[in-house]
């Protein structure tokens, strides 16, 4: 609990109310159903919240010009990560797979030949996400790419609460370096997934497989809460 004081004065978002509104204004039945499933109260203790770790691999960093090539999701709670309910899709990208990104996520042209397009996985993906708080490492990718992909397909975007383990890590390891620190060449600590995990004594995994990264992110959140927070921390202090 002691660390709560250090938490920045976040605007505590009321995703629950937001979802009620979104359920009313959204047009597509898939999205209506997703929003109707609701969002947990911002006051709910994190230990009681149903979570879903997610990782998407993309052809590049720009959600406008690049596409999703794979998605991995791993449902979990603070106590248990359930591999048995995990899901993973390779997706045929709308943009060309470029050589550079192939070396990155190891998904090849052959693999995507028979892969579904994004619209074919949207239904099960939304079903997996419904009622859960999404956990990612660096929220800008997942949020932006999913929003863009849904927008492209349904004509309206997708909003959802996200706990960003990278942001949590930045909070504890990216304090402003003083002029003296800079003078003696003190470096910022890395908050990349692998480095964050290693700081919390989590084992090294092979990176850039969407499902492994989702698992790695779920474990990281468990470790961060066990190390820096109480299991009773309201989820509203963690998400955005």
């Amino acid at each position, binding site marked *: 609990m002691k660390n709560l004081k250090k938490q920045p004065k976040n605007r505590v978002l009321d995703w629950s109310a937001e979802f009620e509104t979104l359920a009313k204004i959204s047009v597509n039945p898939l999205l209506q159903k997703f929003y109707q499933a609701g969002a947990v109260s911002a006051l709910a203790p994190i230990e009681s919240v149903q979570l879903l770790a997610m990782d998407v691999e993309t052809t590049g960093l720009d959600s406008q010009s690049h596409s999703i090539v794979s998605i991995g999701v791993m449902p*979990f709670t603070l*106590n*248990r*990560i*359930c*591999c*048995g309910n*995990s*899901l*993973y*899709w390779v997706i045929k990208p709308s943009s060309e797979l470029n050589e550079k990104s192939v070396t990155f996520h190891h998904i090849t042209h052959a693999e995507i030949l028979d892969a579904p397009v994004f619209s074919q996985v949207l239904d099960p993906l939304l079903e997996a996400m419904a009622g859960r708080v999404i956990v990612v490492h660096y929220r800008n990718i997942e949020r932006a790419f999913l929003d863009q992909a849904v927008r492209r397909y349904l004509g309206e975007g997708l909003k959802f609460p996200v706990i960003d383990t990278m942001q949590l890590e930045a909070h504890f390891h990216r304090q402003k370096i003083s002029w003296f620190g800079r003078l003696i060449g003190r470096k910022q600590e890395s908050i990349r997934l692998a480095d964050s995990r290693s700081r*919390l*004594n*989590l*084992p090294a*995994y*092979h990176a850039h*497989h969407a*499902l*492994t990264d989702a*698992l790695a992110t*779920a*474990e990281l959140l*468990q*470790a961060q809460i*066990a*190390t820096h927070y109480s299991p009773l921390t309201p989820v509203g202090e963690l998400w955005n």
Partner: protein
Amino acid sequence: MQIELQEISDHLYRFAPFDALPKESVDAIARRIEVSYFKAGSDILEAGATIQDLHYVRSGAVEIYRRNGELYDRLVEGDLFGQAGLLRSNKVRFPARALEDSLIYYIPADVFADLCAQHDAFADFVEAEGNSRLKTAVEAQGRASELIQLKCRALISRPLVWVTSDISVGGAARIMTEQSVSCVLVMSPAGLKTAEIEGIVTDRDLRTRFVAVGLNADETRASDIMTVDPVVIGSDDSVFEAMLVMLRRNIHHLPVVHDGNPIGLINLSDIIRYESHSSLYLVNRISNQTSVEGLRSLLRDLRGTYIRMVRDGATAHMIGSAISGIGRAFTQRLLELAEKKLGPPPVPYCFMVLGSMARDEQLLVTDQDNALVLDDSFDPIQHDSYFRALATFVSDGLAACGYSYCKGGVMATNEQWRQPLKVWRSYFDQWIEKPNPTTLLNSCIFFDLDGVFGKLELVQELKDLCARKASTHPVFLSAMARIALNRTPPLGFFRTFVVETDGQQKRIINLKGRGTAPLTDLIRIHALACGSTAQNSFDRMDAIARSKVIPPEALKQLRYALEFLSMVRIRHQADALEQGASLNNYIEPERFSSSERHNLKEAFQVLSNGQNFLRFRYPSKGRF
């Protein structure tokens, strides 16, 4: 679509028992794994809570406790826990706590149950406390069990050739030639029962006792040159036991009896066909040496035999017996050479060995422990100079052959241990009637005793005395128990350390002092308590089994533990020997394989349970 969790299945696949499963099964487990992170110091399992999963340490370190709070084990990456609770009533039996930040993989109960049902090796591995893992390990390492499984009757290749004791030597020789055998059984004219076996005549007897002496072929009876009352072996006894008898007695022919009737003869060459490591040949060569130098030159062969036995997969019992047999042969030959040098003994005596050689459990690194039991007609003034010289000759000879002098001075060269039978009786009476843990500590070694040369009856009397007397002196047994409980096993291993029961960590373990020795100590006490004269620990356990002092299941575990601990010690000595390293009983934990660690841990547990039972059976009275 099949979801692959390569990261998880690859890790499982590196560790036992998953390493022995088909890859598809491990992938299937990985798909069902659940995961949780535990901060150092946090509880993973609390006593009495419900348990639904097998736990697997993915990273970090975990401490397991008994319910009374005692440390039970310290686990690292790749180790399993929670199986004891899963196998019994789904309640946590041993609480667990994270020693370091740890990532735990859970294998759900239904997956666990399927694995146990489908893969025997997996079931054996996780069978908590069952020690079936130890059993499996022991059975797997005793591959060369042919000698043990094969019965003596299988070696009988022809009908028994026999003569009656009143036949002339010439007649016997003719029959041996006609039948082309090297040995005949000499029966009483009264019949053909085992009880009527009078002796045995071999080619060698014809040479040494007849031709060389120049007797008349028609006037001399077979009974005049035969070996009287030969040792016999049962038809259902194993070839290994026949080998032991030949090793110990240095004889080459054994009559085989069945249902009270002799049915055939087996000889050395019959057995050697099955015994590739040639310990019997070595014994034969030892008895042909004419000098200490000659004996000493056989040291290399002894080491070669030892390594061959280990590599052939012989059991600890077989190796211990063979090496002891070889040690006895050295001792016997030295005594023969001593008598040749010093002349015949002035009074009858028996050369007594103590400790591991008496138990038939000797290995290569060993001290000599011996004594002389002299006939009661012994007069120190007249006779002791002879026996002192004899003892010195043998002791020096043994030291030259690698059996180093006993640091505790338990050698026949020490006057205290070179005494007539009546003095020995008074020693044992004293030890048993008025036990004093301090003096017993030094004389414990005398409760493993055996005669190897001379008038064996002298030592047999002492063995009988111990067996008869010890069982009726509970205070003595309690004193022995106190001593046996001085040496305890460690808890287990943690990374490159030995973990003690109090949680301390050490870099090295003495596998004899912390394993086999305390185990043989506790077996000795139970054997003495049930009045057995057996010396070998396995034979003693047979005697204990008959008296039902220890529940059969517990006794079975003790057997496996002794066999396993001995084998690990034996194998490490063989490895050191091959690498030209010096031999000792100290081993660094990093030299144990992961399966050896698991099995050692179980063997230590069995020993610890055995010691608890001993403590319970002989509670400390606070005085002796």
